[in-house]
């Protein structure tokens, strides 16, 4: 682990974070593009949720995690409060692991 890696990763990440807002400040965007970009952001978040629910380092993350996220998803769809969704997901996954029903 070297300082160069930390700085390169920090600089590169910051550049990608700053690029979007900088570009937005320079161009005017039609409502239609505005809508498409929000959909794109939601799509990225959705894909991030699903891949992190299913996979860990390129392999399957195990049924316990997937079950926890699924329980959270069903509760969220049924308009359960946010804190309930988060706790139910954690309790489901932790419970399955504790009872050794799933890894």
């Amino acid at each position, binding site marked *: 682990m070297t300082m160069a890696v930390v700085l390169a990763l920090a600089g590169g990440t910051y550049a990608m974070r700053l690029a*979007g807002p900088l570009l937005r400040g320079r161009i005017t965007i039609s409502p239609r593009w505005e*809508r498409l970009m929000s959909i794109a952001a939601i799509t990225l978040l959705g894909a991030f*949720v699903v891949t*992190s629910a299913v996979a860990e380092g390129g392999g399957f993350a195990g049924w316990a995690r997937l079950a926890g996220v699924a329980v959270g998803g069903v509760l969220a769809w049924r308009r359960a409060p946010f804190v309930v969704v988060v706790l139910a997901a954690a309790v489901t996954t932790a419970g399955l692991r504790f009872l050794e029903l799933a890894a």
Partner: protein
Amino acid sequence: MSSLQRTRPGSRGIWRDKLLRDVLSIAAAMAIVGASLGAIAVSKGIPLWMITLMGAVIFAGGSEFMAVGLMTAGAAPVTAVVGGLLLNARHLPFGLAIGDLFARGPLTRLVGSHLMVDESVAFALAQRDPAAKRRAYWLTGIALYCTWAPSIFVGGLLGQQVGDPDVFGLDAALPAALLALIVPSLRDRPTLRAVAVGALVAVVSTPILPEGLPVMAALVGVAAALPLPRGRKGEEES
């Protein structure tokens, strides 16, 4: 800077503020994940000051875990950097979507950009009007930034006493929290089509693409949201 002042909770107490309550529950989960990152890094011989600094200047958990894992496994430094940057590439489209929330002046743009993480973007997108979006973005970003590096530091100090966060199911809690934030948007049909196709593409490509790229590949799903009600110019992407 007016957006910063709006992040103050009302005088009725913080637990009556739904947004603040939700943000604090995410921050609590992040604190435990940060502590485990600190403990892991120190156990692998990374100096405490360096892993804490990393949390402050990179502020993107996934890429920090990846860098620690790769570097201590003897991977080339360039692998850790490229891998981490691929994982963080989604921040560019995030900024295009919500960049105007904090692009009012040079200073708010510089600070606001650094606070861009999945959770701050998701909390902002979950709000209806621009003022609420701004408040959610700053509140989440500041709360998580103030949590992340300090919890890494504390975790590094505690070392072996920090248990595996997977025992508490936190690896399910954080994706579930993000899911709860995007669910209201999924009631819109075009958005649901885009997310369904994008998530499928991401999952299918996960075993074959390097980490980070499957999530970017999900952007092809946006095509499934079309056709949208046409704008004046009506250009189509190819």
